[in-house]
């Protein structure tokens, strides 16, 4: 046996030296600080020679590693006794002083030790140790009584797909860790291992086909479990509903196709920073029955009260959830002053953690089974020989202590479900909010913005490609779309999208988003090209164009506003609105039906004069009148007054303006880019105006006020847009941010009587308390929302919409949108540089439902797509989507994964049962209702193209239309 000592014994797993070992040119094993031994032969032959090559990786900034290699001859008989003795001793040492079992075990071990001749070099040594070992095993067996408590144990290695290392290193980490598993499996037939994240398998498949082949063999033998359901451990706060669906679609499909195994049933997300209340329904409708995490034990304020629970989503879907309880055993918990209640997915499979897993379990009344997964993660190489040897002894059982059971994860959940029958299992309604990494809703604004844009872009591309393949002669680009989706999903990994990776990861992510945009732009062009005959146009360069096709990506009919450069005007099909301050022209295309197109005829613009760059007025405060408001804006961008003419009330109090920038010193105690500490709000700084507020547009469509403010070396420029006939007010924002460790928020202290808000999440919305009575509410001082948050009293309210932000705080009726968080670890330049985004204020009658908040948020996020062409006829028809209810939103229209038929996915967004009549004119079709993985569940009647169905509150429905 070879042993390698690099001197790195107390380095974080991600940074410890990690080594591939080649024996005579063949990849044979791996080494790292947890795996410093390599077995050359089971039975050594004298004189045998090995060429040993080590391909070593270092991620520790200092050059401090040694390379001390030694050769050892191992005596397996003595080693077996060593582990027998060690495990029994560790169990005894953990028990309380007054525990009779401790006294008994010490007595047995002392007798065994006395039987051994431990004088090194004596011939009698081996025999005496073996005799003592046999006696020890026999005696322990005699005193063993069957424990009803079982600790189901699975080998595991949690590998972050990117974090403190770039993706290219993840590929190596996965291969090294998987090689370690294969080596251990050769030695230990009882060893069972699971690894989720198909993305990692894909890397290994591409880089190391021989290793991948061996994995396939182990999977076939049932020793390697491919469970987990998602493509990778995706962030579940920020990823859109459709993205989460695709994670499961691609994840399940990969495991089934590659390994031929049964359908995945367990959503395995040990390390994700909070879990959306939309997930239970997504899981259930994707055939995922069980959920596992450990992260919720990282809460900094409240211990989550259950470890086995039915988790209930916004729509009432329930999934059986178990939270791993692995932690060290505490002999005297009554004396413990420890505040944290962490558990780990990097278990050690030792006596302390096996006993601790049971001790920490909070639902002993309903189940005697707990789950532990053991093995070092992130390059620590996973399970060690020591863990398996210990597990084997604990599997046999010691006295009446909890027993290890080597198992698969699925077997654990199936047995747990069985055991819970007829028991009163607790349930937990709503999101699993992680009271810890609250900064991850905001850190790395650029990646979050690209993610949001690409999510919508991909959906629009799919819809247009579907139209082109169903109504014209285009082959649906399954392969290109798959590739683009997988790049998006990759970058939704729970340390990439949340903003908690090193800078290099984001350089790669930016390239990936560009790739997605390139693929989608090309496919949209191709789709419009194919559809051109339906629209009586001929594709051409924009300069030659005499027509434009404007496509409405929304799932409801809407006026569309388009912006053309000054070289073209619209001759017919759209109404001229206004020249902008940038030299472009705005046009309104009236009432374009959902997912439909309208043709405009263009003419060359002979009048090239524009008011670009002209400042119409410049004052410390500027007043604006619209149909709805009398407003006053200060030179810092603060809305000093917003008087709602229709409602006859002010939205902001005097001296408490809306859109007030607040800068906070943000130095969390730990996890810089991840965390915001509650104390951040104790002290804030204001921005100062650079110049007077400027009126830069004053038309019949909109009035635009430009403000410029600064904070230290950073500048903020906003165009505040008041529409003359719309309630929405947009804040087009450009920031050059140069401050490290700061939070920037825009505060809106509404004069509304409300102690709760509604927040947009995937496929629906949730209510959150803003009056912080309980410690759970107090812990939610920063929250996550997607496109909007709304604060309403009876009859009136206001929403904040955004096109790329996710973090906000709310206290009473004051909502603050978190715009930037510029932490310095692990990326010292997080959020430094240029940002451009828009958020909007949308006061409305009634609540968010009647007020049309959902639709406004979609309008802000999902802009019309314009395609330039030459007109060759009068045809102007693309199928439109007709929905009879406002509260049913359709984001996804795509070709079925099977290639047969069109998939249409919708959801109910007001939380009320709704009967929907809908049609999508693709010609005569049969209609089916499917699950989220597009598996048909039932046929639906179609009458004159119309399909009728009933949505439960917040229900997601997937339809398949087949010609």
């Amino acid at each position, binding site marked *: *046996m*070879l042993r390698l000592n690099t001197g790195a014994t107390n380095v974080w797993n991600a940074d410890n030296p990690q080594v*591939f070992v*080649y024996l*005579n*040119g063949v990849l044979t094993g791996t080494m790292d600080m947890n795996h410093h031994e390599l*077995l*050359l*032969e*089971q*039975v*050594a*032959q*004298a004189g*045998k*020679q*090995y*060429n*040993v*090559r*080590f*391909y*070593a990786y*270092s*991620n*520790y*900034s*200092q*050059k*401090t*590693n*040694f*390379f001390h*290699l*030694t*050769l*050892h*001859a*191992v*005596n*397996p008989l*003595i*080693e077996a006794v*060593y582990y027998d*003795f*060690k495990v029994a*001793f560790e169990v005894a040492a953990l028990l309380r002083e007054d525990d009779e079992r401790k006294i008994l075990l*010490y007595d047995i*071990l002392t007798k065994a*030790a006395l039987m*051994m001749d*431990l004088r*090194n070099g004596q011939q009698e*040594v081996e025999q005496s*140790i073996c005799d003592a070992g046999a006696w020890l095993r026999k005696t322990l067996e005699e005193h063993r009584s069957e424990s009803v408590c079982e600790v189901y144990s699975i080998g595991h290695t949690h590998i972050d797909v990117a974090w403190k*290392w*770039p993706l*290219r*290193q993840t590929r*190596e980490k996965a291969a090294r860790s998987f090689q370690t598993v294969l080596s251990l499996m050769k030695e230990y037939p009882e060893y069972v291992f699971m690894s989720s994240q198909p993305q990692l398998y894909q890397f290994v498949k591409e880089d190391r086909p021989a290793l991948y082949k061996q994995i396939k063999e182990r999977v076939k033998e049932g020793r390697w479990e491919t469970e987990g359901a998602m493509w990778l451990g995706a962030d579940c706060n920020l990823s859109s509903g459709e993205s989460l669906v695709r994670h499961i679609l691609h994840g399940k499909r990969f495991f089934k196709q590659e390994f031929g195994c049964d359908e995945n049933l367990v959503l395995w997300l040990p390390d994700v920073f909070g879990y959306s209340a939309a997930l239970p329904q997504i899981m259930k409708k994707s055939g995922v029955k069980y959920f596992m995490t450990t992260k919720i034990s990282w809460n900094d304020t409240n211990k989550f009260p259950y470890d086995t629970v039915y988790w209930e989503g916004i729509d009432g879907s329930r999934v059986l959830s178990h939270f791993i309880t692995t932690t060290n055993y505490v002999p005297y918990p009554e004396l413990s002053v420890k505040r944290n209640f962490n558990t780990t997915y990097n278990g050690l499979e030792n006596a302390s953690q096996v006993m601790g897993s049971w001790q920490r379990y909070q639902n002993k009344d309903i189940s005697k089974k707990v789950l532990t997964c053991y093995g070092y993660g992130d390059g620590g190489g996973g399970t060690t020989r020591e863990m398996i040897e210990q597990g084997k002894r604990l599997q046999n059982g010691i006295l009446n202590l909890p027993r290890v059971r080597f198992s698969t994860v699925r077997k654990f959940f199936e047995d747990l479900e069985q055991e819970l029958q007829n028991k009163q299992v607790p349930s937990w309604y709503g999101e699993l909010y992680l009271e810890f990494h609250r900064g991850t809703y905001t850190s790395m604004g650029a990646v979050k913005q690209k993610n949001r844009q690409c999510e919508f872009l991909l959906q629009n591309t799919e819809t247009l490609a579907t139209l082109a393949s169903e109504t014209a002669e285009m082959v649906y680009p399954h392969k290109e779309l798959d590739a683009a989706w997988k790049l998006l999903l990759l970058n939704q990994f729970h340390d990439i999208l949340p903003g908690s990776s090193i800078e290099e990861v984001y350089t790669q992510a930016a390239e990936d988003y560009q790739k997605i945009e390139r693929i989608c732009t090309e496919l949209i062009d191709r789709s419009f090209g194919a559809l051109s005959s339906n629209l009586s146009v001929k594709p051409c360069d924009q300069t030659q164009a005499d027509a434009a096709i404007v496509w409405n990506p929304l799932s409801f009919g809407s006026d569309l506003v388009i912006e053309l450069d000054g070289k073209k005007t619209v001759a017919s099909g759209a109404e001229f609105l206004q020249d902008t301050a940038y030299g472009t022209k705005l046009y309104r295309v009236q009432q374009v039906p959902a997912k439909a197109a309208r043709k405009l005829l263009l003419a060359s613009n002979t009048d090239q004069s524009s008011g670009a760059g002209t400042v119409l007025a410049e004052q410390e405060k500027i007043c604006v009148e619209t149909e709805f408001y009398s407003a006053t804006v200060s030179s810092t961008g603060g809305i000093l007054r917003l008087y709602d003419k229709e409602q006859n009330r002010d939205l902001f109090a005097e001296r408490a303006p809306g859109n007030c920038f607040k800068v906070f010193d943000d130095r969390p105690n730990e996890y810089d880019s991840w965390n915001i500490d509650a104390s951040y709000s104790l002290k804030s700084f204001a921005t100062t105006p650079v110049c007077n507020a400027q009126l830069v547009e004053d038309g019949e469509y909109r009035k635009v006020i430009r403000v410029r403010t600064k904070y230290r070396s950073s500048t903020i420029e906003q165009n505040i847009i008041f529409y003359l006939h719309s309630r929405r007010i947009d804040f087009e924002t450009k920031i050059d941010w140069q401050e490290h460790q700061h939070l920037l928020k825009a505060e809106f202290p509404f004069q509304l009587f409300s102690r709760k808000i509604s927040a947009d999440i995937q496929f629906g919305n949730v209510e959150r308390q803003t009056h912080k009575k309980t410690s759970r509410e107090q812990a939610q001082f920063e929250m996550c929302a997607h496109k909007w948050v709304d604060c309403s009293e009876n009859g009136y309210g206001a929403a904040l919409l955004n096109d790329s932000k996710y973090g906000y705080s709310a206290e009473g009726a004051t909502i603050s949108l978190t715009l930037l968080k510029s932490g310095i670890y692990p990326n010292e330049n997080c959020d430094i540089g240029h940002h451009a985004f828009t958020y909007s204020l949308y006061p409305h009658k009634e609540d968010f439902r009647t007020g049309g908040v959902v639709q406004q948020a979609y309008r802000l996020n999902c802009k019309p797509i314009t395609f330039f062409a030459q007109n060759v006829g009068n045809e102007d028809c693309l199928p439109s989507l007709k929905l009879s209810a406002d509260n049913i939103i359709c984001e996804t229209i795509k070709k079925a994964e099977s290639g047969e038929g069109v998939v249409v996915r919708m959801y109910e967004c007001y939380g009320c049962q709704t009967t929907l009549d809908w049609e999508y004119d693709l010609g005569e079709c049969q209609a089916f209702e499917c699950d989220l993985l597009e598996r048909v569940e039932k046929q639906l009647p179609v009458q004159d193209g119309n399909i009728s169905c009933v949505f439960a509150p917040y229900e997601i429905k997937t339809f398949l239309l087949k010609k």
Partner: protein
Amino acid sequence: MNRTQTEQYLKTALSALSDLRSEQMELTGEVRWTPYDYGKDPSPDQSSKEWESFERDQTWGGKDLHFCFDTMVTTPAQAAGKN
């Protein structure tokens, strides 16, 4: 023996057992090394790389770096039949 003394005795026994598990043998081959990079398996007949002798107390490492180490191991006679 009191409880503490018993624990001490058992710890000593465990430590002795740990030591007796294996016997260290002489490693005769010299270790050579060379900086390496992403993307290629180091094959044993790699001649394009310039190998340098790696001394026992030399150190290596750095951020996101690779190195190759190479040595020849010969199983000594006294290890025959063991792991």
